[in-house]
């Protein structure tokens, strides 16, 4: 899945996905759930707290 596709499915901009991948931005709980839903995985599998 491309960044643009993920961005569209999660209803955010591509720049937000880039920032998330680079671990430069912490998403809101709502966005985290939306992204996990796109990949059809539990939240803790999509995101980890470092």
């Amino acid at each position, binding site marked *: 899945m491309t960044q643009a596709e993920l961005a569209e499915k999660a*209803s*955010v*901009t*591509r*720049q*937000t996905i*880039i*920032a998330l991948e*680079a671990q*430069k*931005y912490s*998403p*809101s709980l*709502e*966005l985290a759930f939306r992204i996990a839903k796109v990949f059809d995985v539990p939240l803790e599998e999509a995101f980890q707290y470092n």
Partner: protein
Amino acid sequence: MKFLNNYSNRELNIWAELILNILVSLFFVSKVFTSNQFGGEVLVQIISTTIILAIVYSIVVFGAINALTKREEKDERDYIYELKSYRISYYLSHGGILGIICLIVFNALYQENIGLLTPPKIAMILLIIALLSSTGKSLTQLFNYRKNI
């Protein structure tokens, strides 16, 4: 065109706004100070010319940006950065207004030393504060966007 891919539609719009602020500041301040007119018909003419040029710039540049790049809906990150920039803008404008109030009080107390503070001069200072505040807002937004890429 490849350059445009590195920037979102929103970032390009902020850049355009920042450049507009800088151009307006440079044009307006240089015209006012070279003509040495702080009031009257000349000031009205300078303000009118500045407004017309700003409108033409906005139509051309913002139109081109929105035609060349895909317009995106604001997301939560945009709103957070917008709020951060509004805070900076708020501090700048309130600091400026406080500065004007101090200037007016000092002007009334020591008029002979710092010269007469006329309404057109106050209007000019307010305009400069507004431009500074807007520039601060744009710079904060761009800093946040670039910091996180």
